[in-house]
């Protein structure tokens, strides 16, 4: 059998629903397999761990050809909310947790949550703006130290 993956560091760089879930699923799945996991939130991905924003993550309805919706229609007022509502309802039926619940669950699995310093500075955020489960706001260099010896996944 090929060598097993022992450790992963997952970077979440996007702030849309479809940009955030894959990284969360991969982190949670890694922990379920007994793999050490750390999550690093950068740029708009910081919304995932933002106290005031992580309950309001929306699906991208513009510039998202996978949705098979005309771009002009995706831009109409309320469409993003309706599509997000529809998607989260479908996910709920499959027992996929909401983003705030999922993040809390992932922290409980022992995975480390970290914010990116450059992005936090850019958006004027401090650790107080982020949920309590976030261990720290770290630099890219500290991220690489943390990621040493494992796989890095960018999403």
């Amino acid at each position: 059998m090929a060598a097993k993956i022992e450790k992963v560091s997952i970077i979440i760089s996007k702030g849309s629903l479809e940009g955030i879930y894959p990284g969360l699923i991969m982190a949670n799945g890694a922990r379920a397999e007994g793999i050490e996991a750390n999550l690093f939130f950068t740029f708009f991905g910081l919304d995932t761990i933002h106290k005031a924003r992580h309950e309001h993550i929306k699906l991208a309805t513009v510039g998202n050809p996978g949705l098979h919706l005309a771009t002009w229609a995706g831009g109409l007022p309320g469409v993003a909310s309706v599509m997000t509502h529809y998607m989260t309802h479908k996910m709920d039926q499959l027992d996929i947790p909401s983003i705030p619940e999922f993040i809390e669950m992932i922290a409980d699995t022992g995975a480390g949550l970290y914010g990116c310093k450059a992005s936090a500075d850019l958006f004027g955020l401090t650790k107080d703006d982020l949920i309590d489960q976030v261990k720290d706001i770290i630099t890219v260099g500290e991220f690489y130290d943390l990621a040493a010896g494992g796989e890095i996944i960018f999403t």
Partner: protein
Amino acid sequence: MPAASYAGTEVTVNDEGFFTDPGQWTEAMAPDIASREGITELTDRHWQVIKLMRHEYEAKGTGPTVRALGKTSGVSIKELYELFPKGPAKIAAKIAGIPKPRGCI
């Protein structure tokens, strides 16, 4: 098919060490399987999870994922990972003599 011997009885397991025939499992084998997974003592809390795994498998034909365990076992996600650090659903399924639960969440 690889074989393993627990509590003095030979059983068949797959490449990952999960029982291929859950009917071969007995409670007496559990401590033996657990110790090979690095769990030296099975507490009542471990047993609460292991018994639920067996029960769910017998009722549904598949064991629960970690999320389902967190909701139904009466043991929190945090404690589940303390009890089974190498993956609660995966390791508890192995100790309970049932196939590895499949599921992404």
